[in-house]
């Protein structure tokens, strides 16, 4: 199988600081990869290179086998790379289905003359994608402002899936959530992966990452120090790699 995304020798500097130092990795369709590392290890910077927020000084990005350049987040979105942001990019004053269709509203003719919003279509399509992802939200006509943090995240994710995201990037997705909600998000990650969506997940909660990721990538001071199959490692080893008390294969 061909990787969905492959990055080779990515280096990103901020002035004199090398935030990401010669990192290579690949992700396959439907795979969940956990990116772990201490604060400032370069996790966010690495994924921001992939989502088009930052430009790497060196390195290459291949997507579905072709070398690509991602100059801005819109380009990343267009090819199916979607980042779920903490501020979530949802309009809180609007309801669930309006957010899922924001910018790509479905229209119908009113009296054969003017284009108006097709609420029924957008409502039922949204319902379908939410059902497909096992997401339970009482009413899709509720405004986002009435939803919990986990529900909002689920809406943001549904939105990207509906519009054919192939690679989701989740930076600390469970950070602001209660325990029950964290569980739901992790379940959602599993559902997504079973449906062929690839996911990068960054989290401080090693436990979370262990429960969903098949592979782990450990970063330290900008470098990728180790890569592990989740089943073949332990939390102890990973913590050791993160803090540097255990040396990884790339140290």
């Amino acid at each position, binding site marked *: 199988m061909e990787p969905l995304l492959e990055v080779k020798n990515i280096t990103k500097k901020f002035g004199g600081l090398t935030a990401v130092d010669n990192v290579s990795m690949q992700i396959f369709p439907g795979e969940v990869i956990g990116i772990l590392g201490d604060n400032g290890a370069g996790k966010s910077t690495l994924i921001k290179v992939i989502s088009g927020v930052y430009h790497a000084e060196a390195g290459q990005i291949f997507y579905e086998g072709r070398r690509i350049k991602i100059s801005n*987040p*819109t380009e990343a*979105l267009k090819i199916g790379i979607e980042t779920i942001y903490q*501020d*979530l*990019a*949802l*309009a*809180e*004053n*609007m*309801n669930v289905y*309006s*957010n899922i269709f*924001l*910018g*790509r*509203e479905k*229209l119908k003719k*009113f009296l054969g003359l*003017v*284009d*108006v*919003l097709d*609420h029924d279509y957008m409502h039922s399509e949204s319902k379908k994608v939410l059902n497909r992802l096992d997401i339970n939200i009482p*009413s899709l*006509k*509720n*405004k986002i*402002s*009435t939803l919990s943090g986990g529900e909002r995240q689920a809406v943001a994710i549904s939105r990207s899936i509906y519009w054919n995201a192939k690679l989701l990037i989740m930076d600390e997705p469970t950070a602001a959530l209660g325990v029950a909600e964290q569980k739901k998000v992790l379940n959602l990650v599993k559902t997504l992966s079973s449906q062929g969506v690839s996911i990068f997940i960054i989290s401080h909660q090693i436990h979370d990452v262990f429960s969903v990721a098949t592979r782990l990538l450990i970063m330290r001071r900008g470098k990728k120090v180790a890569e592990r199959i989740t089943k073949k490692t332990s939390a102890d080893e990973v913590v050791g790699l993160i803090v540097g008390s255990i040396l990884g294969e790339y140290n």
Partner: protein
Amino acid sequence: MINYHKPKKIGISILRRWTLIFLLGEILFFGLVGTNYISLNNLQDILVASTTVLLLATGETFVIITGGIDLSVGFMVGFSSVICAKVMVNLETAGFSQVAAISIGVLAALLLGLIPGFINGFLVAKLRVPSFIATFGMYGIAYGFAEIICNNIPVHNLPSSLGTLGHGYLFYWLPGKIFSFLNKPGNLTRDELKHLIVIIPNVVVITFIFIAIFAFILAKTKFGQHTYAIGGNINAAERAGVNVKTHLIKVYMISSFFASLAGVMYVLQYITGRAPAGSARLLDAITAVVIGGASLYGGKGTIIGTVIGALIISVLEIGLVNLSIPTYNLYIAVACILIFAVLIDQFSPELIQKEEEI
């Protein structure tokens, strides 16, 4: 099954519609206390008196929903009234027919009225000038230009047939004898004239046609949807592919279009153009929008709410006149209603939440 939530639900829907109930209460109150308040003529007078506020507030609703404010509309009314009147006078003097002079005057005012809106929108969207400042600047500029155009004196001697349109009605009805549409029946005796019933002033008809069109646009179309999205989360809108800058420019142009339309309606009603025309109505318009449920933080508001808000103000205004209460009391009353409206909005957000088609 007994629905225990029913009383609460009723309470919520009353709270949601408090403005409508308040408006009806006002009318009832003045109807009981005033003289001839609830009569066809008086109710029509209320509508005529409210056209400026209604028009300004409709345009302002769009701007406020995006999270901005348009202060320029106050003097845009005068600006457009002066252009409209001046063009009409000059064309008639130059030998144009009255119909041509009037039509071109109206068109000129409406078209030129789009320019300040474009500039406002450009400053706000592209150059990131706070809307308060950009439109406040335009407020002064519009006034200054209006005074220049009319040489500091109100424009008079407008085409005589203007009154037929501006003071006309949609229907004329002489019970049992005549029912006429748009045309005032001629050759009536004094007694017949006294009994002639006039229904719906033309200026009110025109005003509500435009309000209805834009209420539709805001509530039903993609354009309306994006207006709400920008007010709710401008970054989300941008990320979702909404062309936020162009959209904002259009929104400010809608606002200045409505202000120009108010200027034209002013000319139709008063058969003159004046630089300060309508300027006193700016705050009433913003108040109407806020009473109508919009938030100055953006993302919220409806045209129907705004219309009710505007009517609350003019019903009160005409009511005070009816009771011979000095109109400065209006300021106090309107201010209290405004603060009340904001308080209701602040303290009952979760009560008033409901499923919505936005």
